[in-house]
Every structure is written in C-alpha cells, then in structure tokens.
C-alpha cells in the first residue's frame, strides 16, 4: 500500500509539473493573446449578428446568397485592419461577425451591412417626400425605369474595378464604371438632370462629404453612360470608398438583430479584477481550511494549488474561451472544490472520534465520503449540461456557455484532486512521526 501511494504521488507530481509548464510562463501573459483565450467581453470588441432578408430569393438560391454575403462581409472587413476577425454563418439566414479589440469606428460598423455603399439622389420637389436633407436642399433617390420597373441608382451597379487617379490639375478622382443595367439607369437620369441640375451622392443617411467638408453634389453637365468620376474627396475617404466599392455588393439586405460592443479598457479591468478576486478568495478559503482542519487544511490548500494549475492548463488545452461569466464559474468552483475535501475531513474526524487509528480513519473516511462526493456533484453536472445547451441555442451565448463549461471543468477536476491528491498527501503523512499527533488533524479531539 505505501509503495502504491508513492507511485500515485509521483504521477500526481508529474501531472502538476506538466500543468505548470502549460500555464507558465506567466510573464508572457497568463491571460490574453498568448495565454488563455479571452472572450469579447474581456478583451473588448464587437459581436454582431445579422439576419439576411431572403424573402426575395427562391429557396434554391438562398444558401448561395448567404455564402456570398459572408464573403463580401469578409472583403469589407479585411481592409479595416482588424486582427483575427471571425465571420460565421449561423442557421439558415444569420451571420455572426466578431471583431476583437474594437478597432473600427461606429461609422465603419454601420457601413458593413449597407447593401450599396453609395446612393445617388436628385432634388425633391416641394410636395415630394425627401430621404436626405442638407444645406444644399431636400433630396430624394434618383430613379429611372429599367425592364418596366422603377429602380434607384446606387453603387450596386458599379463594376468592381474602381480606382483612384489624379486629373491634369492634380485633383483626386475616384473613377468608376457602370455595369449594363447601371449604364441604362445613369443614361436616363443624367439625361434628365443635364445640363444644370445637381446629382447628390450619399453614404447611408448622410451626404458624402468632400475634403472641404461640403456635401459632394456635382452639377450634371452632360449625359453619363459608361463611366464616371467622383471628385473633391479626401485621400483617406477616396481610398476607403474604392476598397469598399471593390469588395462587392451584398446580394440581400442585412438587419442587425444583436449587437454587443465592449470597450477594451473595460475588458482589461475585468481581467485584473477577476484575478484579484480569485486570488483573495483562494487565500481566504485556504486560511479558513487551515484554521479549521489544521494539518489536513494545509494539505487541502496544497491540493487547491494543484487544482488551480490543472484547471488553468485545461482551459488552455481544450481551449476554453474565457468570458467574465466563465471567470465567475471558475471562481465559484474554487469554493465548491473544497467541498469534497470537507466531506472527507469531516468523515476522518468522525472515524478518529470512533477511536480508529489515523491510517484506518483516513482510509475509511475516503471510502465512506466517496458516495456523498459523487452524488453531491451529479446535480451540478446536470445543471451544467443544460446551461451549455441553453448557451448553444441562443444568440447571446458566450456568458452562459462560459459559465457552464468552467463550472463543469472546475467541479470535475475538484473531485479528482480531492480523491487523488489530498488522499495521497494524507497517506504520505501517516508514515511520518507527525501522524502520532492526532490533534494536528482535529484540534478538539484531545480536549473531549
């Protein structure tokens, strides 16, 4: 028996060393890029869920259209310089976009889901409804009839080959080409506006602004058929627009159904505060255990260190994306992890009171506590399983799933450390002279 115990102890030490190797080195960041993966709520970032309006498509075309939407969103996001963006289809008509680090502006965020980057408008008459209003007047979408249908002129009719150029005087121009349908629409509209009416250019709800801060609305001098140019833009705007225009157009409109935006500063605060809470909590729990269970408490505290290292290593290996709620689950599981130890120690105390020797009391304590430990964790496992399902079935999934996963790992590992590590440590101590002093295990025993 003692030999077997020594072997178990060595195996436990090896596991601990391996776990420590995986978790360390700390100086490269225990949490964060090189350490454990952090959820968006901890590192900051944007999580958007779009729903595509597929009503205009036949059922056979929908899947292809969604793949197209995903690709175009990717094309639009890439030039923004976001590191490790995640773009995923979810269900039949949804797309999830996760952008870590919050490196894009509100305006860029809004432009992501716009069907067409630019829209064209003409001045509205007094009695007509206007879509845009600015210092140049009230504007309505510029429309023309094509194939018997009235259509709005937008950049969706641009070919994806826009480029920047300088004119003879050094002015910046964004050159674009109409596709077939666009040419027809443009011909009709510009024919109607020439030679003295303006054509407004709009981006979303606002007029496209030039370098001078004024809305760009050139006077149409002659009919434009194949290609045109936009002048007066600042270089940054022009470059951005050209990239976006070349990224392609969305085949269907998108609607934001869920949006979570967290500032990275807030996220890093959370990580720091959680580590602090975890450490302070662990120290209090350890002090409590040592105060109450003496030597056993010291061993349980050692087991707790082992426990912490093993859980962290598992988080890194699986890997678990850690969210704030996940950290909460982990911190909670530290408190629960002690439970198995408490069950065992209480049993050992009872066995000692019943007059057994320490070795026999430890054996009996573990054996009798085992059923209670097993049974008492079953409901937590049931709840974790259900919460994990709940998390996987909803859009705002990260917190619930994170909590379920970390609590599950925490409780499972706690059973292992209590039964293997604490037991081995206790049995090792039985062989030493310290074991003769039962008061080290239960302060009240000697007094009764």
């Amino acid at each position, binding site marked *: 028996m003692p030999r077997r115990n020594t072997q178990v102890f060595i195996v436990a030490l090896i596991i601990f060393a391996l776990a420590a190797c995986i978790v360390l080195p700390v100086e490269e960041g225990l949490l964060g890029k090189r350490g454990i993966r952090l959820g968006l709520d901890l590192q900051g970032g944007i999580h958007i869920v779009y729903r595509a309006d597929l009503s205009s498509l036949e059922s056979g075309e929908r899947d292809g259209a969604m793949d197209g939407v995903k690709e175009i969103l990717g094309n639009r996001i890439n030039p923004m310089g976001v590191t490790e963006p995640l773009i995923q289809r979810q269900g039949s008509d949804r797309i999830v976009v996760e952008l870590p680090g919050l490196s894009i502006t509100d305006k860029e965020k809004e432009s992501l889901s716009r069907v067409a980057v630019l829209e064209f408008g003409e001045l509205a008459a007094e009695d007509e409804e206007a879509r845009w209003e600015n210092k140049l007047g009230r504007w309505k979408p510029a429309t023309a009839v094509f194939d018997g249908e009235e259509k709005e002129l937008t950049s969706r009719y641009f070919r994806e080959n826009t480029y920047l150029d300088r004119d003879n005087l050094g002015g910046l121009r964004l050159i674009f080409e109409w596709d077939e349908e666009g040419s027809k629409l443009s011909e009709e509209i510009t024919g109607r506006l020439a030679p003295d009416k303006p054509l407004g250019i709009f981006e979303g709800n606002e007029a496209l602004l030039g370098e001078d801060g004024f809305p760009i609305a050139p006077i149409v001098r002659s009919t434009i058929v194949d290609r045109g140019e936009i002048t007066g833009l600042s270089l940054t705007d022009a470059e951005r627009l050209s990239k976006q225009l070349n990224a392609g157009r969305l085949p269907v409109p998108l609607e934001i159904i869920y949006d979570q935006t*967290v500032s990275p500063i807030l996220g890093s605060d959370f990580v720091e*505060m959680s580590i602090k809470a975890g450490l302070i909590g662990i120290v209090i729990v350890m002090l409590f255990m040592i105060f109450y269970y003496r030597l056993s408490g010291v061993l349980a505290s050692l087991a707790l260190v082992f426990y912490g290292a093993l859980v962290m290593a598992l988080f890194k290996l699986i890997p678990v994306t850690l969210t704030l709620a996940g950290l909460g689950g982990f911190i909670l599981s530290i*408190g629960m992890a002690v439970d198995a130890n408490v069950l065992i120690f209480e049993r050992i105390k009872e066995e000692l009171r019943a007059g057994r020797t320490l070795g026999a009391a430890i054996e009996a304590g573990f054996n009798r506590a085992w059923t209670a430990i097993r049974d008492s964790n079953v409901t937590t496992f049931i709840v974790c399983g259900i919460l994990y399902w709940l998390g996987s079935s909803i859009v705002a999934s990260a*917190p619930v799933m994170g909590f379920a996963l970390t609590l599950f790992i925490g409780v499972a590992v706690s059973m292992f450390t209590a039964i293997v590590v604490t037991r081995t440590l206790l049995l090792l101590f039985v062989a030493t002279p310290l074991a003769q002093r039962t008061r080290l295990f239960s302060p009240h025993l000697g007094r009764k």
Partner: protein
Amino acid sequence: MMFDIVGKRFWFFLISGVVILIGVTSLATFGLKAGIEFSSGSMMTVGFEQEVDQGGLRKELAGLGYANVIIQSVGEDEFLIRLPELSGEAKTELEAGLTARFGALEVREFDIVSPMVAAETAQNAAIAVAIAAIGILLYITWAFHRMPNPFHYGTCAIVALVHDTLVAVGAFSILGGLLDWEINLMFVTGILAVIGYSVNNTVVVFDRIRENLLKGERVGFEVVVNNSLVETLSRSLNTSLTTLFMVLALLLFVGASIQNFAVVLLIGIIAGTYSSLCIAPQLLVVWKKGRRGKAEGR
C-alpha cells in the same frame, strides 16, 4: 442533546414563511423587470470624466427624448442606461447630447437586442429551466429510491428547492422595485446553479438520516433527524462558507457587470443552506409525526 435543531422547527418555518411572504408581496406589487436579453432594447454603460448625478442624467435623457428610461449606477460616475432599441445614428446623437451637457464620456459597453432574438432567448431559457427541473426531479427520484419513504424524501427536497427559488426571485423583485435591477440570462443561470447546489446539500443531509436509520438504534425519528443534522452541520456550513467567500470576493472585487449574478448566488447559497438544514429535514419530521398522529387518532 447538544443542539436541538429539530425542536425549533416551527421558528424556522416562520422565518421562511415571513421572508417568502415579503417576496411574494413584492412580486405582486413590483413584478419582475425583464432585461433586454428577454424583452429587447438597448443597454449602454457610460462612464463620465466629470461628476454626474443620476437625477441630472435622468433629466438630460428626458430632454433628449428618452423619458422613463431605467438608469442604474454601477460605479463612480458610471451608469447603466436601459433604452429602447437604438439605431447607430440615434446612438451617435445621444452620445453627442450627453457630451454637450456633461463633458467627455466613454461608452464602455453597448448592446442591442432585437425583439426576435429576445423572444428566442426567453423561450429557450424557459425550456432550459423546465428541462433542469425535470432532470433534478429524475435525479431526486433516483437518489431517494433507497430511502424508507422515497416519496416523502423527494417531496421535501423539492419543497426546499421551490423555497430557494422563491426567496431568490422575491429578493430580485424587491431589488427591481427599489433599484431597477433586472432579470437577465445570468440571473437564470445563477438560479439553476444554486438549485443544483442546494439539492446537493439536502441529499447529503438525507443520506446521513438514512444511514442512521439503518443502524437501527431504538430512538425516535425526531432524534435520528436531529443527530444527523448535528453530524452534517459542520460539513454543510463549511462548504457553504468557502463558496460564499468566493462569491463575496467576486461581488467586492469584480463588481458592477457581474453584480446581479453574484447577488443571485449569494442569496441562493444562503437560502439553499438554510433550506437543506432547517426546512427539508424538519418537514420530514412534521410529515412523519402528522401521519402517526392521524394513525393514533383512529
């Protein structure tokens, strides 16, 4: 007898009764406030550089066209504002309006949940609660099939579980009425975690009652239950204490964003420990006595 726990059972019932009555009254008066995850809308966490008081913020928001919004203070000059579903444009306008009045601000978190997503979330959360209830019931049936009166033990455990849920929900109704705290997904998660935890405690106590009954000592049922409670008391309290330490650390050092969740756990763990010691086993005694009383009366 060192501690007479069972003898004080009517006091325990009275305490629980009063706490639950207060909770239920609050539920009837205030109801529960559903968070945006369940009822759709926008949530904004704003931090101001200058000192801002809640009343002034409320007034300014009303001036900007957002009357009757829910504002919760979550830190020094930091507020959680619950708004109707905001478009990007409306958000920009709101930020500009607040900046004009209160100076520089930082939007630390901004969430939008559409009605479609909210309905889905509420539905699936309800399903999860139902499945969890069934799972725990199955577990209780299995765990108590070895007991002398499995139905009695199972029923008492379930009463304890309902007790814990009522206390936590009641407390949140009061917090909702007084401080505008809302029920969100993490609340449901916390309740489920607490229920699992509390059932565990009850099982450990009942397990000991069973073990002591099997020893066949010739003492009354009441004495067996009391002895079992005393024997498991330090285990029950110590386990709850270590868990409470961690929850308190979470509440004190992480704070705002996880505050509601930590408070559910705090209330739930206290209620769960109480019910597994002072409600479930005592009910068992009352039930047994009541039956015997009837039998003797005949």
